[in-house]
């Protein structure tokens, strides 16, 4: 009799679970200068992956329908408009839309603003894209996570690549955007280069505003003080404009240019992208992604839907959603099959690890709230036969080689000589 009662209650529970939805806020740039390169591709990635989740068509261990049987109902919000607006929009998502979790934010300034707001509201938040290391280095959070490595990895990997490939330089020029991302990237590369190339001299240090569009004066300044290496973390429309304006002036022939996050401009620029540029993608993404069944599935899913291959932003979105899915399902199991609270999901995600198309993601920093992952750096080469920019001389770096250990600030780790780094 008790078995029958249990079976009936399970059926009811399963039925309730099947009808239940998991409301997920997804915030990214749908308008403005960051929409084309980051926001829209990431949201596009989210759409196809969530659809696959809801149909139960993702490969194992992500093959349960929705999140543990709950249908995922996304609510998309535009990140454009500044940090103050984003804090209000985040509150609206939790209070009015009653979302169960939020995944979002490309802008480092936005991340720095919304993280304390989510924590204050005791609501679950995943930062999926932004790069500034300050979030978990300067603050402690219980409900906030970042499922991608921070910018320290990108610039340490660039410097290690230059060292590994025997590229010698004694002078460096910089051009980075004048906000948190640009400043942090420049500082990290400066510090890493100082460690790996002692005596290197820093010259021009340009910080054009975000969205400047016109770089003629900056290019003249870079050419006026010729350096053997030029470092930049420009991205999106700014990066495309810089390349279009700098290439005819032979900047790329006069200096070795290194970009910390430039893979996303390759499909659009095509043969306008100069050969020989060294670049990263903020992870082993796109043309530098590892061969795996999961990556093949994701590549096909995205490419079939959008007729272009996925670059870094959709990769980071999908790895956050995969991690969230496993965390929700783990928390659900611990909660007797019932929909978990934000607190329970946070407990499940903390310190966890999962496979993504870009390799393993480990929540190893920030007391289990900040991810580390492997990354890769490559060099551009246009393939006329394929009519696309390819990446050659790709070198992979494991997560422990290019990320600081837990509890150590990235900047201190670099300046201390990368103590604890495991590069074998």
């Amino acid at each position, binding site marked *: 009799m008790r078995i029958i009662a249990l079976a009936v209650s399970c059926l009811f529970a399963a039925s309730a679970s099947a009808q239940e939805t998991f409301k997920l806020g997804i915030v990214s740039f749908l308008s403005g200068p960051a929409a084309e390169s980051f926001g829209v591709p990431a949201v596009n990635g989210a759409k196809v992956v969530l659809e696959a989740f809801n149909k139960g068509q993702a490969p194992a261990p992500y093959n349960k329908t929705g999140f543990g049987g709950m249908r995922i109902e996304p609510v998309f919000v535009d990140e454009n408009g500044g940090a103050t607006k984003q804090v209000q929009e985040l509150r609206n998502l939790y209070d009015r839309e009653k979302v169960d979790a939020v995944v979002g934010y490309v802008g480092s300034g936005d991340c720095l603003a919304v993280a304390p707001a989510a924590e204050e509201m005791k609501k679950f938040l995943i930062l999926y894209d932004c790069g500034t290391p300050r979030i978990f280095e300067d603050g402690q959070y219980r409900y906030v996570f970042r499922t991608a490595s921070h910018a320290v990895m990108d610039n340490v990997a660039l410097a290690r690549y230059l060292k590994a490939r025997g590229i010698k330089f004694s002078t460096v020029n910089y051009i980075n955007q004048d906000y948190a991302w640009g400043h942090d990237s420049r500082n990290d590369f400066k510090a890493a280069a100082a460690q790996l190339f002692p005596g290197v001299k820093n010259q021009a*240090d340009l910080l054009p505003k975000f969205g400047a*569009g016109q770089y003629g004066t900056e290019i003249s300044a870079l050419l006026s003080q010729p350096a053997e290496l030029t470092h930049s973390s420009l991205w999106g*429309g700014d990066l495309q404009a810089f390349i*279009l304006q700098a290439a005819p002036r032979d900047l790329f022939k006069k200096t070795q240019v290194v970009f910390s996050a430039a893979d996303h401009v390759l499909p659009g620029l095509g043969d306008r992208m100069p050969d020989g540029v060294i670049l990263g993608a903020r992870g082993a993404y796109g043309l530098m992604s590892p061969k795996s069944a999961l990556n093949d599935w994701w590549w096909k899913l995205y490419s079939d839907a959008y007729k272009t291959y996925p670059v870094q932003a959709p990769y980071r979105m999908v790895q956050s959603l995969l991690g969230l899915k496993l965390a929700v399902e783990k928390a659900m199991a611990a909660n007797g099959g019932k929909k978990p609270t934000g607190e329970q999901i946070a407990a499940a995600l903390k310190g966890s690890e999962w496979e993504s198309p870009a390799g393993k993601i480990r929540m190893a920093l920030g007391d289990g709230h900040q991810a580390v992952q492997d990354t890769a750096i490559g060099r551009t080469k246009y393939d006329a036969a394929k009519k696309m920019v390819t990446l050659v001389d790709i070198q992979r770096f494991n997560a422990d080689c290019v990320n600081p250990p837990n509890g150590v600030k990235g900047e201190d780790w670099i300046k201390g000589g990368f103590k604890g780094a495991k590069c074998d």
Partner: protein
Amino acid sequence: MNTALTILADGVAYASWLFIVALGLTLVFGVLKILNVAHGSFYAVGAYAAATFVAWFATWGFAPWLSLIALLLGSVAVAALLAPLTERGLLRVFYGRDEVLLVLVTYALFLVLEDLMKLVWGVNPYFVTAPYGLFGNVQIGGQSYVGYDLALVAVAITCGLGVWWGLNRTRAGKVVLAVIHSAEIAASMGVNVGRVYTFAFMFGIFLAALGGALTAPMISVQPGVSVAVVIVSFAVVIIGGLGSIEGAAIGALIVGMARSLAVHTWPPAELFSIYAAMAVVLIFRPEGLFQRVKARRI
């Protein structure tokens, strides 16, 4: 010496680009007394239209140099289609109201146009680089400049002189000046003020779209290109005096040179230099360099 030449060349090139856009902004304010916040959106539409026309010309197999004509046609199309629609369909409803209300209306228009552009052209970037390589490179002060950038100086001078000549040396220009001085008296003298407003707005929008079209070959045309240019253009027209063509030229030169000097000598002061120059001008000339103090009408 070379550094001074480089600073000068960069400053003038940047000022030329700015002047083409700011000229339209100041012209619209001078005639219609509208501070058009949506000016940057027309600049962006001009860039998109240019991208579309250049792509069509390439598809039809036209010679590369004809892409310059495509840029011009794109600007003309924006001015001919969008400007009358905006002026007659929207702005005219608010004439005579508080100027602040018109600022808000154009801000609303800016937001609407931003979304309309996404609906029409999507969010993927457009590249129209063909015209950028047409003029080769030029050596100035030991630097190699793209000839196209320097050609913009000639375009800016042509636009400035053309507008000045049109206003001061033609009958139609004198009618426009009459409307600028007093629309009521001009109307009482038989001037069709509404038509003057429409054509002045069209020409202002043409200059905005031309600025965008000429910029398109050196950038990737995508959402968000409108914001930066309109903010700096406002600085230019405020320095020069709202409604003054000479003021826009001098304002653009001041902004261009201040920015160039800062980037070459003290890069962190790039933005500061622009607004410091504006602040200094406004301390001594609160109405801008070329704005005469007007008696208040009672």
